[in-house]
């Protein structure tokens, strides 16, 4: 029963990852990130991703407040935020978000407020989506870990 669950979970993980790659939400950088995970740092990916979420939410908040300021939008500051966002996104391999960031930055460089707003919406949307999916992934992995943990005593 538990063994089967583990298999299913593994299949789920694969399917989810395949989906994410397929949709272009993640790229191989994420795989590399996963490869960095080893015995010394078992939760490396989730740790990094959590930092990423934390940072990103802060950035998104900042961006939104900058853009909502009707009178004046500090495109310079926005650019800095976007660079950060872009950097962290490409670090974890969130490709789609990174692409949106590129578009966003292009819009901000042109002082195109409407474009910025649109990009921000898209960015928020993509971010929510990625967050959901990655949470799902981590949940499955947690379950897997649990299942593995349960199984070990049985095997032993």
């Amino acid at each position, binding site marked *: 029963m538990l063994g089967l669950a583990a298999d299913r979970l593994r299949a789920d993980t694969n399917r989810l990852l395949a989906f994410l790659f397929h949709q*272009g939400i993640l790229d191989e950088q994420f795989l590399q990130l996963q490869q960095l995970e080893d015995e010394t740092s078992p939760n490396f990916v989730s740790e990094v991703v959590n930092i990423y979420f934390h*940072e990103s939410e802060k950035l998104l908040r900042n961006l939104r407040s900058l853009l909502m300021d009707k009178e004046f939008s500090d495109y310079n500051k926005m650019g800095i935020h976007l660079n950060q966002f872009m950097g962290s996104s490409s670090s974890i391999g969130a490709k789609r978000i990174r692409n949106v960031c590129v578009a966003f930055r292009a819009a901000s460089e042109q002082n195109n407020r409407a474009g910025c707003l649109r990009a921000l*919406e898209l960015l928020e949307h993509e971010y929510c989506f990625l967050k959901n999916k990655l949470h799902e992934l981590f949940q499955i992995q947690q379950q897997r870990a649990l299942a593995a943990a349960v199984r070990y005593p049985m095997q032993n």
Partner: protein
Amino acid sequence: MDADNKVRRKEVLSSMCDERARMLQDQFSVSVNHVHALAILISTFHYYKNPSAIDQETFAEYTARTAFERPLLSGVAYAERVVHSEREEFERQHGWTIKTMQREPSPVRDEYAPVILSQETVSYIESLDMMSGEEDRENILRARATGKAVLTNPFRLLGSHHLGVVLTFPVYKSKLPTRPTVEERIEATAGYLGGAFDVESLVENLLGQLAGNQAILVHVYDITNSSDHLIMYGHQDEDGDLALLYESKLDFGDPFRKHTMICRYHQKAPTSWTALTTAFLFFVICLLVGYILYGAAIHIVKVEDDFHEMQELKVRAEAADVAKSQFLATVSHEIRTPMNGILGMLALLLDTDLSSTQRDYAQTAQVCGKALITLINEVLDRAKIEAGKLEMETVPFDLRSILDDVLSLFSEKSRNKGVELAVFVSDKVPEMVMGDPGRFRQIITNLVGNSVKFTERGHIFVKVHLAENTKPVADTKAENCLNGGSDDSVLLSGAHQFKTLSGYEAADERNSWDSFKNLVSYEESRYDASINMTVAGETSQSVSLMVSVEDTGIGIPLIAQDRVFMPFMQADSSTSRNYGGTGIGLSITKCLVELMGGHISFVSRPQVGSTFSFTADFGRCKKASFNETKKPNTEDLPSSFRGLKAMVVDGKPVRASVTRYHLKRLGMLAEVASSVKRAVSACGINGSSCGSKIQPDIILVEKDSWLSGEDGDLSLLMLDRKQNGHMFKLPKMILLATNITNAELEKAKAAGFADTTIMKPMRASMVAACLQQVLGIWKKRQAGKDTQNGSLRSLLCGKKILVVDDNMVNRRVAAGALKKFGAAVECAESGKAALKLLQIPHSFDACFMDIQMPEMDGFEATRRLRMMESQANEQMNGGDTDEGLAQKSEWHVPILAMTADVIHATYDKCLKCGMDGYVSKPFEEENLYQAVAKFFKVKPISDS
């Protein structure tokens, strides 16, 4: 005309005048002649006969009876020449005394001329001495001197008181010599025959006989005395038309006297009709012209007024249009902002724990919201295009990756429907083109979205070629592509397999294998010919692409085909009910395509499918900008598959080409086998004997081919592999599928396929990821990779490295990556913190520095660090020269820039600031190795 008239008038007058003058003259001369005859008669019978044959009675009788001969003469009389000496004798003979004109007995004179014979009409002058009248005397003297008829001045005649002249003829007693002198004549004169011409009644009569009598006024003058014209006929007070007169000479036979006839018109020349009509017509014409001018002026004024009005209206309309666009933009923006909140909140709501009903509600709301956003965007786009405000960007972009992206958007939907989705881009299409990627994506999304919406089975196939490439093929096939031409064949299509992507019939046969292979083979030859060819092709500035999107959906009804591109028109009102949508998409697409300098068309057959194709012009990318821009826009396809050989097993050649296209993009060499059997034979032979044949590293098997193929073939393949015994060299088998059930997956695994199936639609990066996953273990075995990985580890192992980055995520990832290679990592979150850590006595072997940081960026930090180092070095050199020489290069921490966008300029700047190199973020092993090897390679040697 008037002059003409005058001339004619003058001519008429002259002819009439001449005619009258001639007639008068003729009549006159007739009378004169007759008087002459009378004179001769008298001389003959009165003088030559002795005794005289003529007496008063005879003469009166004769003259009375011959009076018709002399109508002009009131009467004739004969006066005998009597000299004074003969007077008594004469008086006695005749029994009366000679009397003067005043009827008194004549005084004594030299000679007398008493009338002896007279016509009865003038019998009152008998016995009157003609020489007593002044006029008559002169006449008589002249007559006998010349021997011719002479005329007196006109004077009032005795009887009638009419103006008249007296004609006098001399009668000679004897015959005159042939050339008589005046004296001889006077001597021979016997008497005088005279007659009074009543000129007035004469002319009156004469004129009465002529036509046009009333029209002209005739005057006859005696002009013997040129200074004093004596009037013979006509009333002095009648003036007539003074402007025009005509003079005719009259010759009455008396050379001494001159007469003239002057004719005038009675009335002034009537003003001519022509002149009148001309004047009238001219007036009328003037009137008309005036009226026309007036009308024109009025019209011009009216048109001008209208024009001004129109202009005003136009301005107002334009203002309204601008207002509309602004309104649309504002409203849609205003709607979108809260909609975004709604959607975001819905997304968050969906993350929370919801009951299934709640989730359903929330999802519905989200879907509706998204639809609304899409609609608003479309309307906004349409408004923008209409307002001409939509401007096309020209930035370099990778067409292929955009197509991949779009396809991946629809992959979920198409997979659920079981519709195959594929993209094929010709090799000749440049990797990067200049254009508007967003709009291009929009067009493709629109077309593919439509296709996905209306397609329930079969395939959707996006194909991109150079426009000029497809032409020859299109021409050959053109005759077959009549819209909805052959509905009958549709019915048969169930049994028949078409050579399209999925085997279903497509509307436009251009994409079927028959023509497609021409294209592919043509390109192959071009491609193989050499790269020079592409270089030659790149000389032109722009490239025209032909994109077609083919589906096997429900097609467009024939009646609706001509209004497909009209906004808000769907094929059928039931369409929106069944499939949703507003029908604005295609009109926007058309506008966008036209903005891109192309045109869009379609071929559609109901129940068979539609093929939309459009052309668009893009600029070619300059090589220089190519490298710089490549990074940010394109997904980087991993290069690790370069040179790998693959075999694609697929019964459908079009689909196989698509697969091959994706593999080619990864740098792989691909061969196509139409069935498993052929693949087996191709591999089987090579496995055992000759190495010249292809030796695939991977075999990609299409699900259909696998299912249709016999298991025996596959097991044969497996067996073959076992027999060969080269386990590590064995090709990996990967299944390609649009959708796959778990059962099939299990079966596939049992058949020896890898765990991962490549799900369609394919996209290069996804294929790459899958291949990586499949080849993951296998890859490590490869020597090259292993050594590189190992060497990186050996390079970095035990090194103490500082990572400076303000981005916590990046910091963590970089630290993790470096740690993995055995380095001890410390982190700093800003330039300042880094400087603090790098105070001169430090133990770091290297520093990875982010460039873009707030407060102090990487360049600045590096500059300061280098300054510190040089100071320290100087101090050391100054303090201890011996050791300074040896340790001169001691304080130089290698600093590597970390940057997400590696532009060449940035790299130069890095070097200028004293950095030693750069690595791109996120780390790639190869890249990292190259960068680190530069300065660590020396160190291990010097250390060891």
